[in-house]
């Protein structure tokens, strides 16, 4: 009984942790070209060029930029797409 309760508690805790809103972050690196980063952000998120350029400049200047916020599952898909374009990206729980 104890082990069953522990497993249930762990599953609920994990499920709770994954709920809520998540941020997708893109990080700066010394290789990826700025125009390329802009194009990738446009392509992945469908943003207009101006917004994509602003986000790219934030990545370049601040070292990282928050590019999208939403549910966990689409956030993971976005990060996977960004990785396929060889951009350093991750997600974090939104506060």
């Amino acid at each position, binding site marked *: 009984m104890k082990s069953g309760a522990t497993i249930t508690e762990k599953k609920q805790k*994990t499920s709770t*942790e*994954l709920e809520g809103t998540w941020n997708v972050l893109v990080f700066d*690196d*010394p*290789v*990826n*070209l700025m*125009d*390329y980063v802009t*194009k990738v952000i446009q392509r992945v998120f469908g943003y207009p060029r101006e917004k994509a350029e602003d986000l790219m400049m934030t990545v370049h200047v601040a070292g990282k930029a928050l590019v999208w916020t939403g549910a966990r599952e689409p956030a*993971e898909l976005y*990060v*996977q797409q960004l*990785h*396929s*374009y*060889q*951009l*350093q*990206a*991750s*997600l974090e729980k939104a506060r």
Partner: protein
Amino acid sequence: MPTIEGGLRIDVETATDWLVLEQIAPDALQGGAEKLPSRLGALMDEESGWDEVVIPELQDFFSGQLRKVADTVFEAQKDAGAQGEVPDGEVLIVREDGAEWYGALNQARLALERRYKFGPSQEATDVEEFSAAKRSAFIRSQFYCALQSVLLEHVLE
């Protein structure tokens, strides 16, 4: 040279030109290209299942990019060799392959940067002080970057 069909033609004039193009895939692989997906996913947590699902897919995807470039250069060399003793020839990057070429060149540059720590290219002003290997790698990295810029401007949508 951009082509009317939306691709890119690289005119190869010397044996050194061929060597540089041949070096794209080895530069990526010697710098640990197979670990690139793991490095990109280093900040992802365990709940994402990144190691089991995403990383193997990305490894296949990135390997495919390097294979495409290596095969294209190899075939172009064969065609050039078939035309006589002079090593000049051309490598044609068709529009549909532009993204794969860009990705392969990026892998090579990421690997060279990781290995030699050039930093942003505009700050690499001490090239004369580099070792021979590092200088050669830097020149190749600059060439790959230039090729990426042309692909970005004329080929990639």
